[in-house]
């Protein structure tokens, strides 16, 4: 079976390549086209010879993709692109189902090897997943082979150049679905599900597509619909499952590849030569293209099923099969009759009409005969049909026999003959041809009837599909606009509600019961502070002026600092106070110039919803905190840290030791964040801000006088804080903040001088500081220790500070000190320049 497909692929492929070279002569895209064509041929060959279903699937998808790229060859045309997309979506969608089927087979059978799976077929067929597997594989097959209701992509695919239509969309790729069904027949077949589904799809497709084909006037669409019909026939035969049917299917597959390939090439040649594919305009081409005409007529006769062409044998077999299976066979027989009669019409329309008669159209008078590439393919295929018909047993017998044995999984001798004698089957053939001729005679009436129906119904597969796709896109757009509305308030509302719902869910799962811990001793000042903070928080929300909310925010910060102080965290409290002061300052500087600094903010229409969310969050966090108090444990790592702080890390201020030694890496990250923030602020300034230079603030004499004395003191004090930090509250962070304030003070007193500390600008301070911190960890590597391992080298006793241990942690802390000072100075400088820019040109900041 695979071998046959491979032969078809290479054989017809060769002819098509020759033909395509002629067809696309002079096109600058021929290289790309041939590339895709060979890609396809390779994929198709791979598909044909794959024994592993997964590998087969890979090639399967490759054929879909190369088909997509080939259909879109004339990609400037909108219709081309759309058709290519239709084809891809249908086949790839089916491919996805096929993949699911393969996956399930792999899980059920434990292998992807087809042979091994067939050996385990009972396991597969009795598995609960069998119907799902079958359906998935089926969907894969019928989408690829363009079965109703997925057939419509194939006529659309006629937008491709003719060689592609001849090759992919009649001879090979669309057969892949049939091929798949055939090779999995031993594995999945012989069940009622298989039997009826396939017969049903096949018969409907066969009949319906044949009827539609009959009324087409475009050469290629005619052929496309008749291809769909032929594919339906094949599916139906495979669904009938008796050996005769399979024999018929195999024979028909070959026969069809021959005559349809030929006819497609003929159609392409005609189009190329005359510029049209409308049958009505084509007449009397035989004289110009005699050899092409011979091929076309031969193929058409084969398609009509006239002796002595091979198509006759195939059709005889079809009827014979149907007669053998009485009840259903009768229905199928009627369907088959209709379809075959319609096929006769199609064959005559394509193969005969354009060539016969006198030249009707003036334009075609000057047609020149074309080169060999055009007619060699159709001629060979047409003649082949005749040869096979005359000597069927000689050439086709053995391969068909082998295929039937593979597909039906039993021995069966195939005898092919042209002449069976006078019998019922021959009578049926006769009826077919006669009714076909009658219909052909009334073709114009038929066409009008078809047009009438089409207009009345206004319905076609492709229209429905595209409407569905457009509807899906509209729906996706509506949903997306619903979710991603662009309004950050909505986003935050959803996030908070989801968070609280998750929290609530967690409590519900774990059986939360509120408890009111009373472990801590009652302290009046804490109660007062708590109430104060609650009040401040509420006031902050209610404040309508910007300045007020900033002030209140600062108060909240100081309140929190007080709380830290009350619970034994002096370092925290100091840091918090300093940070809050800075924040306050920055906020105040930043809002300077914002519109409505003092005005009331407009009432908020979303306020009730927001209030609800806020109350949810508040309740959630209160309950969470209450529960978090509820635990006490013995083996916290903090206890170990406190115990080794002095003996091993030589520091009495445990918090500072943690910051510069135990968890110095955290601190390194922290100062990195600071540096990035400052540099980011710096970067966000327009170029004007950067080049702004010195400040234009007026000099204040009082400030100048006081700064002269306090500023150096502050800087000295900051160094003191830094050095003593290891043993007492203080440290690099607090020291750095104080130093920055000193530097700013100096700057305020002497605005003409740039902002400096230790003669370094803010940027330099940050870089040097971060370098200190990062490098202080590296010496440890030379001693084979991990990064940031402390190295100590003696101690120094300083007045006022006391004993200072010298070592890498100190260098690290100095780095922190410098970074913090630099960051604060940089932020200040930025804001100040902003102020200057604003004052010089207020409009530049209030309007874009």
């Amino acid at each position, binding site marked *: 079976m695979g071998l046959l497909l491979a032969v078809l692929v290479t054989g017809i492929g060769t002819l098509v390549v020759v033909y395509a070279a002629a067809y696309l002569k002079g096109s600058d895209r021929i290289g790309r086209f041939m590339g895709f064509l060979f890609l396809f041929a390779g994929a198709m060959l791979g598909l044909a010879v794959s024994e592993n279903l997964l590998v087969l699937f890979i090639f399967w998808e490759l054929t879909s993709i190369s088909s997509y790229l080939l259909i879109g060859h004339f990609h400037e045309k909108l219709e081309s692109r759309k058709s290519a997309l239709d084809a891809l979506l249908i086949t790839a969608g089916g491919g996805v189902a096929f993949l699911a089927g393969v996956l399930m087979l792999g899980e059920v059978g434990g292998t992807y090897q087809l042979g091994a799976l067939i050996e385990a077929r009972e396991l597969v067929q009795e598995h609960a997943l069998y119907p799902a597997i079958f359906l998935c594989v089926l969907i894969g097959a019928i989408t690829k082979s363009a079965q109703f209701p997925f057939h419509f992509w194939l006529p659309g695919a006629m937008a491709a150049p003719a060689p592609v239509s001849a090759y992919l969309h009649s001879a090979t790729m669309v057969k892949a679905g049939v091929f798949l069904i055939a090779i999995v027949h031993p594995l999945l077949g012989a069940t009622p599900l298989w039997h009826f589904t396939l017969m049903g799809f096949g018969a409907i497709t066969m009949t319906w597509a044949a009827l539609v084909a009959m009324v087409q006037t475009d050469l290629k669409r005619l052929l496309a619909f008749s291809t769909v019909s032929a594919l339906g026939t094949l599916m139906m035969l495979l669904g009938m499952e008796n050996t005769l049917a399979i024999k018929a299917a195999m024979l028909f597959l070959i026969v069809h590849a021959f005559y349809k390939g030929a006819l497609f090439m003929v159609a392409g040649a005609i189009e190329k030569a005359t510029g049209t594919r409308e049958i009505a305009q084509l007449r009397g081409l035989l004289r110009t293209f005699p050899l092409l005409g011979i091929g076309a007529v031969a193929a058409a006769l084969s398609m009509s099923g006239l002796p002595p062409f091979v198509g006759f044998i195939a059709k005889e077999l079809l009827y014979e099969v149907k007669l053998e299976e009485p009840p259903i066979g009768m229905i199928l027989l009627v369907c088959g009759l209709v379809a075959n009669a319609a096929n006769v019409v199609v064959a005559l329309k394509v193969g005969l009409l354009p060539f016969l008669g006198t030249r009707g159209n003036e334009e075609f008078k000057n047609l020149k005969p074309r080169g060999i590439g055009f007619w060699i393919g159709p001629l060979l295929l047409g003649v082949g049909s005749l040869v096979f018909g005359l000597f069927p047993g000689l050439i086709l017998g053995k391969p068909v026999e082998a295929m039937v044995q593979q597909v039906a999984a039993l021995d069966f001798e195939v005898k092919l003959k042209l002449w069976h004698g006078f019998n019922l089957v021959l009578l049926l053939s006769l009826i077919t041809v006669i009714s076909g001729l009658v219909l052909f005679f009334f073709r114009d009436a038929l066409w009008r009837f078809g047009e009438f129906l089409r207009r009345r119904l206004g319905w076609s597969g492709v229209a429905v599909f595209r409407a569905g796709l457009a509807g899906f896109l509209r729906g996706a757009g509506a949903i997306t606009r619903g979710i991603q509305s*662009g*309004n950050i*308030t909505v986003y935050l509302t959803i996030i*908070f509600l989801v968070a609280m719902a998750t929290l609530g869910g967690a409590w519900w799962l774990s059986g939360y019961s509120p408890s*009111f*811990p009373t472990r*801590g*001793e009652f302290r009046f000042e*804490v109660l007062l502070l*708590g*109430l104060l*903070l*609650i009040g401040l*928080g*509420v006031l*902050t929300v209610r404040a309508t002026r910007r300045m007020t*909310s900033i002030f209140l*925010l600062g108060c909240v910060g100081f309140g929190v600092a007080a709380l*830290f102080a009350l*619970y*034994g*965290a002096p370092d*925290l409290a100091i*840091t918090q106070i300093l940070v809050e002061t800075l*924040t306050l300052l920055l906020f105040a500087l*930043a809002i300077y110039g*914002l*519109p409505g600094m003092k005005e009331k*903010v407009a009432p908020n229409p979303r306020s009730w*919803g927001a209030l609800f*969310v*806020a109350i949810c*969050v*508040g309740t*959630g*966090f*209160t309950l969470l*905190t209450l529960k978090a*108090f509820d635990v*006490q444990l013995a083996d*916290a790592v*903090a206890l170990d*840290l406190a115990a080794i*702080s*002095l003996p091993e890390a030589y520091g009495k*201020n*445990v*918090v500072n030791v*943690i910051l510069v030694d135990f*968890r110095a890496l955290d601190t390194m990250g922290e*100062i990195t*964040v*600071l540096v*990035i923030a*400052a540099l*980011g*602020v710096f970067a*966000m300034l327009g170029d004007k801000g950067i080049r702004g230079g010195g400040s234009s603030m007026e000099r204040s004499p009082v400030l100048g006088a006081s700064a002269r004395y306090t500023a150096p003191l502050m800087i000295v004090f900051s160094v003191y804080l830094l050095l003593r930090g290891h043993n007492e*509250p203080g440290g690099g962070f607090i020291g750095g903040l104080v130093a920055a304030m000193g530097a700013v003070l100096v700057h305020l007193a002497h605005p003409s001088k740039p902002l400096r500390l230790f003669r370094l600008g803010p940027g330099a301070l940050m870089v040097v500081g971060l370098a200190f911190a990062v490098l202080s960890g590296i010496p440890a590597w030379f001693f084979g220790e991990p990064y940031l391992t402390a190295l100590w080298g003696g101690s120094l006793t300083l007045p006022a500070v006391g004993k200072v241990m010298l070592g890498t942690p100190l260098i690290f802390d100095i780095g922190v000190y410098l970074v913090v000072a630099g960051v604060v100075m940089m932020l200040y400088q930025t804001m100040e320049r902003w102020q200057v820019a604003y004052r010089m040109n207020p409009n530049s900041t*209030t309007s874009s």
Partner: protein
Amino acid sequence: MELIIAIMIGCLAACGTRMLLQRSLFRVLIGLALLAQAANVLVFTAAGLGRGDTAVIAKTAKELPEGHPDPLAQALVLTAIVISFGVLAFCLVLLKRTHRRTADADVDALARVES
């Protein structure tokens, strides 16, 4: 005592949330600052509140006294405070930039980016 602190944390979180959900970007920023405060206090207190001693070993002592506060939690909060300061400072300037471009510090102005 824990009760009042728990309510206070809840209240700060609620106020922060309420501010975040306002139209004015300036208030959104204040909301973020309040949320950061709430989280910091939560971390500080979740590790257990001491009696008020510091986590500094006395001059003469070798170890912290029994029942000392959790120094690690303090270190974490300190780091968190500094980080949130850095981020807030950045946001502040971002707000100014956004505002300068949109000419109104309102969240609705942000919707344009997604249309």
